């Protein structure tokens, strides 16, 4: 029912691999059987958490440091697209980059919704680096109670 389409992503860096190894080692050392958190999806930016609510869906996108003005959210029919730039600023003159692990560059991600959205009623808020998008179902797709006529 829930299909994620994967769009272009930020360049893979060796730090992604190192971090993933570090996570594995930490997990082994801590004696945990299963990862406590779902493994971060390296394939797509931004990572998303999705909830179903009475009104429709709530989607959280993990985008620390992003300028909310630089994110374009579009909902057309049953498709949600996120597009924009993150950490795109070049290092200032006289500055040396010693380490770069944070994702940077242009991103695009498209998500197939399990219903047609009421695009006019989509809301988005940004708090502490997490973008929350609330997408209500379109009126036509809301469950209706059908009255049974007595003959």
């Amino acid at each position, binding site marked *: 029912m829930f299909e994620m389409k994967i769009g272009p992503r930020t360049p893979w860096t060796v730090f992604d691999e190192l971090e993933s190894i570090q996570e594995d080692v930490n997990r082994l050392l801590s004696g945990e059987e299963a990862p406590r958190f*779902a493994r971060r999806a390296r394939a797509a930016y931004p990572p998303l958490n999705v909830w179903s*609510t009475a009104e429709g869906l709530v989607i959280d996108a993990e985008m620390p440091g992003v300028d909310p003005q630089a994110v374009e959210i579009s909902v057309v029919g049953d498709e949600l697209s996120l597009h924009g730039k993150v950490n795109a600023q070049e290092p200032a003159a006289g500055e040396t980059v010693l*380490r770069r692990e944070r994702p940077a560059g242009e991103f695009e991600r498209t998500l197939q919704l399990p219903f047609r959205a009421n695009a006019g009623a989509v809301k988005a808020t940004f708090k502490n680096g*997490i973008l929350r998008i609330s997408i209500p179902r379109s009126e036509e797709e809301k469950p209706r109670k059908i009255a049974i006529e007595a003959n």
Partner: protein
Amino acid sequence: MSETIQKSNPIPENEPVYVPRVDVRENAEGFVVVADLPGADEKSVEATVQKNVLTIEGWTQLEKPQGGEELGREFGAGRFRRDFALPDAVDPERIQARAKNGVLTVTIPKKEEVKARKIQVTG
């Protein structure tokens, strides 16, 4: 920033701790450490300097929507910690830290005497 900040929320043993992603830049004035801490605010982040080691630690939090049923999860939250060995040439007394939009920025100034100076060549 003082050298010893009381740890109000020590990390319990056995609790998994994740390592935040960072960018580190150097300029003439010093070093800048930028850490991604989505879901953290200035109250849940702590930066400490002790014996030339900078430690950033704290926790991040997710807000579950009311009545929400989880359909998919690609990121989590919880305790984080990362240590950085500082070069001798920095001034630990003047380190500054700021949390905004889920990003912690720590500015570490170099000591005055190690800053590069341009020396006027006279003929």
